[in-house]
């Protein structure tokens, strides 16, 4: 039951992210990437099953758990994904800031510095 609710929440996160990613101004797609990352982290957490069990720690001298344990793996995966996602998101923020400074523009429609200048179409101008 709780997994179904969380799955719906993942859907909401991803819908919000898609809405933000479709915007033209550079800040919104960046926020969209951040929201998408969080939605996917939640997805991994739900994929590992949400259970009410003992923490996955063995007592001193024990070699096997006494009963069922909570699944620690999704947390390890999410932690890694958060670190990577945070670093790349921070880089993208700085990059967007520098691009806005250099190009004087944060509308992706008008970011054309890397495109070749307009001219007659090639078959005629060759």
């Amino acid at each position: 039951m709780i997994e179904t609710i969380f799955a719906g929440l993942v859907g909401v996160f991803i819908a919000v992210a898609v809405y933000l990613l479709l915007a033209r101004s550079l800040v919104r797609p960046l926020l969209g990437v951040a929201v998408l990352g969080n939605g996917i982290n939640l997805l991994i957490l739900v994929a590992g099953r949400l259970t009410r069990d003992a923490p996955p720690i063995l007592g001193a001298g024990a070699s096997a758990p006494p009963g069922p344990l909570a699944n620690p793996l999704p947390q390890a995966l999410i932690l890694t994904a958060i670190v990577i996602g945070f670093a790349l998101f921070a880089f993208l923020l700085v990059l967007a800031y520098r691009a806005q400074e250099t190009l004087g523009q944060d509308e992706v429609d008008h970011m054309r510095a890397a495109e070749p200048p307009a001219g007659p179409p090639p078959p005629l101008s060759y």
Partner: protein
Amino acid sequence: MQTALTFAADWVIVVPAILPLAAAALLLMLPNRIAVSWWIAVLTTLAVGISGAVMLWRVSADGPLAMTMGRWLPPFGISFTADITGAALLLTAAVVTLVVLVYARADEAGPGPSNRFHALVLLLLAGVSGAFLTGDLFNLYVWFEVMLAASFGLLILGGGAPAFDGAVKYGLLNLLGTSLFLAALGLLYGTLGTLNMADIAGRAAGADPAIMTSIGALLVVAFGTKAAAFPLNAWLPASYHTPPASVSALLGGLLTKVGVYALLRTLVLLLPASRDLLHPVIAAIAIATLLLAPLAALAETNLRRLVGYLLIGGVGAALAGLALPDDNGIGGAVAYVIQAMLTITGLYLVAGLIERSTGETDIRRMTVSGGSGTRLSVLLFVLLAAVAGVPPFLGFWPKLLLLLGAAERAAPAAPQAGDAIAWLVAAALLLNALLTLIAGFRAWATIFWQSAAEKAHGSAPPPAGIPSRQHIFGLGAAGGLVGLVVVMGLWPEPLLATGRAAAAGLLGPHAYVQAVGLAGSAR
């Protein structure tokens, strides 16, 4: 089960990932002395190449090698697994990196003389090696992000408005691609409860085909973005021509190929049933990429953007192999990826030399004169012929394998029905060769045969050729790579044998699963 320590000689598997990482960290701590950092980078790349060659030799003789980290038993610990596909691509990646490092010595105006450049190149190599060797899907995601981080740095190291513009588009779309891969991976974990590739290969057959196919489709979108397959390729021509030529060559030679490799690994080795259900989609993507990319190249006026479109066409050819899942088709795809890594890198390097000796980036304004013009025209001619697949040159042989694979599927022996899609793929492959030939040689003829007076747009007289130092490193590196392309084209047997052996390994996962130590649970 593996309970003993890994046999010492098997440590060669982790060398290609760990050594460049450590060397990159070292370079960042050292003072900025170009000669020192260059030698460290070259020696590290050589070591990676040698371990790649050793692995290829051992894997061809004894089957896949595996090593699982931290003494956790295989499905739990992170495995590194070298099979023929991974080892052959790793060796090629090291060769490409070495050539680019030599070439970058000539980039005096660019980011060449800086240890940050060398550190980022090594970081990129570490990411690529890790992606080729890892046997764990989450670890593959980590290596993808390592590559992404290094390529961000390389793209903007030179600075300038075009580089920032290109990097924003490159960064956003590629981060989106890896995020989708992470989502697919989470769903796969939720369904099968494992991320170890060998374990997945064993369990996927028993899982619900509907869920597996959704995951497969998500993987096609994610890795299709990384590989720049047709509807998802917009980031590549927007960014790859903005950094210095050495960086273009490195990114063009390595990054998209890792995307293709990941598609082959996941869809052929891990989820063959989803691949079969997605067959028409993959074939449609391959055909669209094969045809539209060279058409875009035909309409392109910027030399390095044109090379970018030829690169995308090559990705289409490799995906065509994915749409022909037999020994010849998959073998052709692996062989094509190997040849594309070499020829596309060469094309970017030669394009950089042409840009430098003419001082122009627009094909219509380039005027080349004198001895260096002759040399450059020969180099570009050979590489264009290799990319298009003109018979004695390198690109022909993988395409021959792909066409053989298509013919086998289209008209198999009596009882099975032929696959009509295979005819379309074969036709697209042939048309792609023709269009690539036209697009490439039209540019070649415009650059080298049209005299300055004939050029439609008047331009400044060309600079007095390439300075001698750049001449030696730049022409030397590009010439060496072209020499390798010619030799491999004239003696294609090793490439074709490697491709076929790689296909056998990908299509029959038994040896791979057994090497990791999971033979008992395999299907």
